[in-house]
């Protein structure tokens, strides 16, 4: 049976335009769901890998150093490092997911399906970010938290800090995904920027034990404030003023979201 024969059985297409005007909310929802679908299709990379690596860090550092370092700031060492490790896993997962998703969409050019659609640039930006944020954020918290057994002293603060952290790194992932020409660029940012700054951001220690000038230099590390905000949510204690930690994290998150928005709005690097 030919296509023309087959179509005779379908309602008349085209000219009638049977559907009402495009619903922008539906457009964004479709993009969010598509991103979630990608995350779940690649669950071994997007969800399992960060959970396993965090569990290994907790196991190795907890066992090897936990017996030698009794307490930091009044907390057992294996409890102290958990918030930072979860923050690190969230940051890396959010960044890697969004960056690789955009890069693949650009390389294979199926992003054109989104760019040509009646979806406002801000919804595209938000759609790409939310897809990663929702799936990775929820998955890591649901899977990782029960495994650690660490108490949550300030759940509202924790939710706020985690949200800011994931939004920030999702937006950074969008920006890098738009600028990157290859996976080398994506890996470069992850391995040369995010990972070292996270390790030096007080994940495994309190910066109060550092000598000068390292303690002062740590205050210039943006990831230190994010780790500290997350730790405050878990343990109710932090190295710096909690308002400063939240404020700084929020400021960087807003800057990253604005950068990503500018790219979608102008089409720079997305469209030749």
């Amino acid at each position, binding site marked *: 049976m030919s296509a*023309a024969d087959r179509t005779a059985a379908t309602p008349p297409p085209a*000219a009638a335009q049977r559907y009402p005007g495009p619903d922008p909310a539906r*457009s964004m929802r479709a993009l969010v769901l598509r991103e979630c679908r990608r995350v779940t299709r690649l669950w071994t990379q997007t969800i399992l890998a960060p959970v396993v690596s965090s569990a290994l860090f907790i196991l190795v550092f907890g066992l090897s150093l936990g017996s030698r370092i009794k307490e930091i700031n009044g907390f057992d060492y294996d409890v102290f490092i958990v918030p930072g490790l979860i923050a690190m896993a969230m940051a890396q997962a959010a960044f890697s997911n969004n960056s690789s998703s955009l890069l693949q969409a650009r390389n294979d050019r199926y992003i054109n399906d989104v760019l040509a*659609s009646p979806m406002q640039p801000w919804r595209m930006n938000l759609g790409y970010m939310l897809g990663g944020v929702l799936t990775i954020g929820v998955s890591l918290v649901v899977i990782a938290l029960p495994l650690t057994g660490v108490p949550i002293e300030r759940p509202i603060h924790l939710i706020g800090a985690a949200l800011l952290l994931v939004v920030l790194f999702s937006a950074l992932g969008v920006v890098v995904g738009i600028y990157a020409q290859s996976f080398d660029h994506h890996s470069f940012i992850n391995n040369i920027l995010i990972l070292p700054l996270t390790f030096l951001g007080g994940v495994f220690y309190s910066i109060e034990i550092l000598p000068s000038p390292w303690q002062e230099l740590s205050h210039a590390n943006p990831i230190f404030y994010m780790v500290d905000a997350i730790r405050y949510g878990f343990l109710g204690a932090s190295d710096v003023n909690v308002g400063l930690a939240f404020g700084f994290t929020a400021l960087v998150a807003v800057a990253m979201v604005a950068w990503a928005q500018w790219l979608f709005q102008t089409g720079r690097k997305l469209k030749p």
Partner: protein
Amino acid sequence: MVRESTPALTIAGLSKTYDDGTVGLDGLDLDVPAGEFFGLLGPNGAGKTTLINSVCNLIRTSGGRIDVFGFGHETMEARRLVGVAEQDPNLDRFLTVRESLVYHGGYFGMSNGDADRRADEMIDVFDLRAKADVRTSKLSGGMKRRLLLARALLHEPLLVILDEPTAGVDIELRHDLWNYIRLLHEQGTTILLTTHYLEEAESLCEDIALISAGRIIARDTPAELKRRYDATTLEEVYLQTVSTSLPTVMAAEEERS
């Protein structure tokens, strides 16, 4: 609201200069009446795909204006009215055939129910039922081409843009596709087609424009073009018009490479 009398496409002074200085379009003017089967012919690098990408918001134009059924091409109204099947298959490798269609419907603001129903229709029309739950990366070239067309038509656009839709497609599928596109056209859809198969363009298109070096160099019905250039086939017209402007095209190609 779309009026019958409004041209499907109105392009005035459209120009595009790429970042490397290559001129893709050079003050191009073009009107495509609503409901027409319109052919855009020209050699590689002449500006066909640049023109199509400009209409579909896939490149940043340097100047000029594009209206789709009277709406500025960047508006949400205009975008909804256009469906494009690009030259190379650009399918989301993480989705199945059905998901590709349903998510496309979502991007274009369709409800879940409408997108599902329409995806089913397109799956049947393009004989994709057996592959509906297969990831797009596993499809053959012909199946990918079918899916591209199904996706372009899913949201029932009034202007369908087909950029070399039968390139690399076997004769049977090509025949099927043209029959369906003809049917769409009979039902009122405006078709803008680019193809290197000149006999196809001659038999399908009511109006043809020849593009070279980013400008329209001739435009008329196939019969009138043949009469004007004293040719018996469209191929002869093509060779006459394009050969006169070929040095310009080659210079542009060289500059680009």
